[in-house]
């Protein structure tokens, strides 16, 4: 066995929020609430301002929301891609994958169905 291999964590990994470094965590909560507050104010400003090119607003709002969710995950839930967090990170990735399938799959299918619907007047005509 190599002697320089420093393994200070539990070999079977950590769950979210279980690592105990109090000083480190206080700082992370303070950074987290600061960043989340800034991102929230930016979102509300972006939504009401006329300075930004209109069609770019939804994209910007999406980016800000994803950034803020990331801030919450990293600074409040203490999720990271560290080796001892592999389980948490993989299950998070799977959760995001399923949410993405459900949301974008539903929107795609319903938009497609909507396009293929017979116009209402024509439908009424046929029912006569």
């Amino acid at each position: 066995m190599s002697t320089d291999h420093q393994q200070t964590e539990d070999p079977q990994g950590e769950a979210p929020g279980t690592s105990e470094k109090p000083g480190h965590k206080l700082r992370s909560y303070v950074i987290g609430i600061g960043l989340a507050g800034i991102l929230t104010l930016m979102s509300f400003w972006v939504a009401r301002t006329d300075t930004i090119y209109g069609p770019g607003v939804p994209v910007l709002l999406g980016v800000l929301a994803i950034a803020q969710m990331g801030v919450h995950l990293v600074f409040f839930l203490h999720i990271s891609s560290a080796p001892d967090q592999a389980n948490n990170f993989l299950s998070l990735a799977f959760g995001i994958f399923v949410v993405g399938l459900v949301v974008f799959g539903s929107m795609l299918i319903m938009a497609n169905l909507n396009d293929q619907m017979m116009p209402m007047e024509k439908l009424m005509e046929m029912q006569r």
Partner: protein
Amino acid sequence: MNALPGTPDSVPLSLRGPAPTRVVIAFGFWLFLLSDIIIFGALFAAYAVLSGQTDGGPSGPDLFDRGRVLLETGILLASSFTCGMAMLAASAKQRSKMIVWLLGTFALGGAFLGIEVIEFSEMISQGAGPSRSAFLSSFFALVGTHGLHVFVGLLWIVLMIAQALTMGMHERVQNRLLCFALFWHALDIVWVGVFTIVYLGAHL
């Protein structure tokens, strides 16, 4: 060279025995939270599909008050912070400090829920209840489910304070508190999606 006594690196992972209880509990709860987020994903999908189907009734921009939503967001964010502070006090085994932070979290969560109830009752009294249109049904389903989760969180805080008072800072209480903190932070993440898609997205 190794951290845990009795588990040298040469022992394969499969033979190292179960992980500590705290890690097992928190990881299991993390999986529950992810499946809860998938429920919200389904409600978000319903809202995204139905948000334009107002049936001639009021639409989002007619009903939503942005200043109020910003206030709600700030309150929920602050409650996430106080919840984190309660966790730090709990891991330092400072019971009274932890209870004070938990009471702060309860007050902020209660204020959030109060504002939401006022908003809902105003909408219903204006004739914009969940049965008015598909848009409003999906709105009440999504935001109402989030509010219901916050309400459960408030009950959970009361329970945790009672247990901390009666059982002390027992390991079991600490584990339950850890799960509560994960739950509360996850609700804040869902709220980020709610205010972006429902409240800010409505005006686009």
